[in-house]
């Protein structure tokens, strides 16, 4: 069926809640209002107020409660409305939940899903527009996935709910309204840890994540025959799918990573470092990271749009990479 991404999320929640009584949903205005972004619409009506709960404005409180509930028999799905709000509650996810299995000698697990909206594009300003993958990195025990389409939002969320470990699912806010085909059968479940190759090509592999998956795709489409690209939607960032990525680069011998975050500390560095190291001497060009500039997300419409690299920027950067075999200047300096 065709669904918007927000509906796909609600559908995944409903489908898992029907299958498993222990799945509950918590968050600010997720119940009566169906979510600020309507990603939990209809759940209160179908599953009732015991399992679908509006919380006070207390991220530390309700995320912590979800950790406790997860350790004692439930599978809570927590909505963090804008991922920045986790800045008041990070402890519960990374210092408690992610370490509980370890610190219980494997006797407890924390099947918790933390869904949060992320990213720029809608004019929410510097404190409501970041993607913040880095908050979840370097945290053994935690899995991090990022949705980009209705189909993988649905499929990743179902996997996340079934997983016995804490899983973070980042949902690019700008994509909530996107429509696409969603398979609500088991076949629509998207495994964690597996990337999605969305285009074939020969000259370069372009990897995107979340909102930049489509940017990567469109950049490849705009190449005008000068080059062709394998495009990969990474889907899971931790752990990332080394097999798919390395195989692809084994064919194309060039990698471009498109990121919606500042250059310094952006998620692509991990991939770029590992690929550069593992395929040393086998690459035809340096690994290129196309990121946003190192500034807070600006509000004004044109600046916000200019802040994150669009398909044209990516295409030009790939052109330059292929032409020279060297890293081009950052696009904003060009």
């Amino acid at each position, binding site marked *: 069926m065709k669904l918007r991404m927000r509906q796909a999320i609600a559908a995944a929640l409903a489908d898992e809640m029907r299958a498993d009584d222990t799945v509950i949903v918590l968050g600010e205005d997720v119940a009566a209002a169906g979510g*600020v972004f309507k990603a939990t619409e209809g759940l209160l009506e179908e599953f009732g107020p015991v399992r679908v709960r509006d919380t006070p*404005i207390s991220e530390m409180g309700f995320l912590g409660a979800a950790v406790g509930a997860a350790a004692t028999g439930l599978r809570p799905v927590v909505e963090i409305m804008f991922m920045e709000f986790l*800045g008041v509650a990070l402890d519960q996810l990374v210092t408690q939940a992610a370490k509980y299995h370890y610190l219980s000698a494997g006797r407890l697990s924390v099947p918790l899903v933390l869904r949060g909206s992320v990213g720029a594009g809608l*004019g*929410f*300003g*510097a404190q409501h527009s970041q993607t913040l993958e880095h908050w979840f990195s370097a945290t053994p025990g935690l899995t991090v996935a990022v949705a980009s389409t209705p189909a993988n939002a649905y499929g990743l969320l179902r996997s996340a709910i079934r997983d016995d470990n804490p899983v973070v699912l980042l949902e690019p806010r700008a994509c909530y309204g996107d429509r696409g085909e969603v398979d609500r059968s088991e076949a629509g479940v998207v495994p964690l840890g597996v990337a999605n190759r969305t285009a074939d090509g020969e000259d370069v592999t372009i990897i995107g994540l979340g909102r930049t998956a489509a940017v990567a795709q469109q950049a490849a489409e705009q190449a005008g025959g000068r080059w062709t690209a394998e495009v990969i939607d990474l889907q899971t960032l931790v752990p990332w799918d080394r097999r798919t990525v390395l195989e692809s680069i084994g064919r194309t011998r060039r990698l471009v990573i498109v990121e919606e975050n500042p250059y310094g500390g952006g998620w692509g560095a991990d991939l770029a470092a590992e690929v550069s190291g593992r395929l040393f001497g086998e690459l035809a060009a340096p690994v290129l990271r196309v990121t946003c500039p190192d500034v807070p997300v600006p509000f004004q419409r044109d600046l916000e749009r200019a802040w994150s690299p669009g398909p044209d920027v990516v295409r030009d950067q790939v052109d330059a990479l292929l032409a020279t075999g060297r890293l081009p200047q950052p696009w904003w300096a060009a």
Partner: protein
Amino acid sequence: MTGTRNRPDTVDLAGRQALAADPLARLGRMLEIRMLEDRILELFAEGLVHGSTHTCQGQEAVAVGIATAARPTDWVSCTYRGHGVALALGATPEAVLGEVLGRSCGSAGGLGGSMHLCEPEVGLLPTSAIVGAGIPIAVGAALSAVVRGTEQAGIAVFGDGTTNIGAFHEALNLAAVWRLPAVFVCENNLYGEYSRIETTTPVQDLADRAAAYAMPSEVVDGQDVTAVTGAVARALERARSGGGPTLLEMKTYRFAGHSRGDAGRYRPAGELQAWQQRDPIEVYRTALLSETASGAVDAETVDRVRAAAADRIAAAERTVLASPAPDRPAMWSHVTAGSDPVTG
């Protein structure tokens, strides 16, 4: 800042100072707030506002009461619902509307947006889009005053729903135990987003929460600018004389939705209408007209004030609409301060 050198004034200090002396200035300021907020929602409907915006119609008396009682040197932290407080403190309508519309004449040069106003000259710290974040920050401003030996106070303005977040608790406790010159102004407008207070909060009067910090508190009629002014003045007097912080709960109501686009359908029928009977502007107008003793305020005068407010807002809108968006280099202009090797 790039592109903002010739921008219109972002503060009107004289206008701010007039509030304490002149009841009509207070009425006028409430009217300006109402009119600008109404206009912002219209501009939003016209597609001119990027992103979201949170307006404060119905809560004008709180904003103007605070600004009347406080000095421009006091520091105020506020939230995404900060247009009214900013205007009351003396931010110009150009600074506020300019920021909402992303123009270089805005408070943050158009880089912040509706949720991010800041005018240090009149005491407005950057308004925060994170619930509760401004409360400890205002406590820090109070601490700063103590360390520097000034008479300044720190004032935090926040909503009812915000009393459930940890930062509220930690900030009030800290201010109390250090006896800092801080004033906590809770605008209890009965809702946090779409959730009614009693679904998230087990106490009726949020002022009662002050007892957990052995802190004095008051429940205040937030629709009555004179009551607000008086309560804030008492709290500031206590703060400045070493008596420590105070929690003030302003009973108020937002006439519009939580943010643009919210029609407020979660409200019980008749609730809005009942509160509109206590429109702070009408309440104050009536009070002024009935103050026969002073005699100076008649209906005509009020009409004049209203017309002046309308003119002011219309003029601001013209200025803002003629004002440029920030240019691209502006994005890089204020990431780090100074010229040390880091920011070089």
